[in-house]
């Protein structure tokens, strides 16, 4: 199979979007997951429900709300228009925000599960030995939760790569900016260019399989150690 630069552009954009989203999500999800795993607060179920919402809601609902929220009359969008002069919708940054919302549960849930299985004791033990709270978390909880971090990263990345409905709603299909691979495939199918659709679909299928396979192989090694 030969791919032209124009065809690979959307895949590269999807990979960039997935990578940026994954990094941001790990930063957001780690403290959130730790809090969820250790808190005894009565609002915990409320937070759990909010975090899980993107799994249940159709991407069209998320896309619709994001279009309003990020648009020039929305709470976030109006502020952004004043600051930058343009809307957040139809931009790569807008897609990053949308993807962070869309993939949040896929980062939080593996991490929260990993932190829960560790429990509070190891971190508390480190603290009694004089480690600061942050230091204890970083040097004890994080290494112990390594499979959770791996799972969260791979799932966030893969889920963002497979994102379609949300991008369709807020993306505007701009080459190099918001035309990600799923949108490009959709375009080819709609334009009856089934040959290109087949090529990109097969490429995505193989890519997704390899990413997941790597995760399971690495995960197996980690849990054996």
């Amino acid at each position, binding site marked *: 199979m030969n791919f032209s630069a124009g065809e690979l552009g959307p895949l590269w954009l999807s990979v960039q979007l997935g990578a940026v989203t994954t990094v941001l999500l790990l930063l957001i999800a780690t403290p959130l997951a730790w809090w969820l795993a250790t808190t005894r607060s009565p609002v915990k179920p409320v937070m759990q429900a909010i975090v899980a919402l993107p799994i249940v809601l159709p991407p069209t609902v998320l896309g619709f709300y994001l*279009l*309003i929220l990020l*648009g*020039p*009359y929305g709470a976030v969008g109006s502020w952004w228009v004043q600051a930058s*002069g*343009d*809307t957040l*919708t*139809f931009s790569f940054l807008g897609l990053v925000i949308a993807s962070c919302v869309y993939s949040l549960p896929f980062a939080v849930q593996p991490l929260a599960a990993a932190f829960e299985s560790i429990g509070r004791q190891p971190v508390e033990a480190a603290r009694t030995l004089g480690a600061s709270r942050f230091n204890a978390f970083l040097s004890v909880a994080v290494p112990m939760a390594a499979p959770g971090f791996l799972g969260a990263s791979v799932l966030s990345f893969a889920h963002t790569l497979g994102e379609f409905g949300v991008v*369709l709603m807020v993306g*505007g*299909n*701009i080459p190099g900016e918001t035309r990600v691979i799923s949108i490009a495939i*959709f*375009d080819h*199918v*709609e*334009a*009856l260019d089934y040959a290109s659709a087949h090529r990109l679909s097969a490429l995505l299928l193989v890519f997704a399989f390899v990413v997941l396979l790597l995760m399971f192989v690495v995960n197996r090694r980690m849990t054996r150690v």
Partner: protein
Amino acid sequence: MSRFFRAVLAVVIVAGCAGQALAATVTVAVASNFADTAETLGREYERTTQHEVVLVRGSSGKLFAQIVNGAPIDVFLSADRERPLEVLQRENRDPRNAFVYAIGELVIWSSDPAADGIDCSRFLQTTKRKIALANPRLAPYGRAAQQFLEQASLWERLEPQLVYGENIAQALQFVASGNAAVGLVARSQLENADLPVTTCRVDVPLFTHAPIEQVGLVTGRGLDNPAATDFAAFIQSEAARNLIRASGYRVPARDAFVAGDGQ
């Protein structure tokens, strides 16, 4: 009972059953931009016949894929020419089985307060914000919009500002939600009462783009359904043409009509 009376009885029974069978269902696959108009047409048709009309809405590309893959569709009202002709070619049928049922018109439209009191074609050229159109590769209205912008020598300058709706409905929605400053949309869409206030609007001159001919056909499967052929004939009737005109489309000239009618 004589043989003759038995024969008469058989004819009566068969005819009675045939009368029952006449109340058929027509499944119509309709391009999203024409769906509301098709619904009105369908209701009118149901009122005047015993047949029932079931609408399947979608983009012409998706509907095409469903039809050639055997979906139970009797009539296809596409937004373009190419896909119905492709259906006919795949079914080894004469291209003359396709008919133009409506001709779309392109409008520059905005609800941006900044466009208030400004000539809309001027606003299109001066706004720094996004400009929405349907994807030229997928939607005939998008292709016409591109031809117009190229004709006006604006395409290259405005291209960085363009955002593409999957179809003309999404292009309108980008403008209506304020995410795009202005859009190139279909005149028929602006009949919708739920739209925000129009701040500027101007018709795109017809000579700047190839006509947006929306073509329909009775599918190979629909040929076995007398109601399908009948509904297709209704779509081209004077009553239907008036409804289509009232919905913001033009209708094609027809031999039966005086030249200039409907143009």
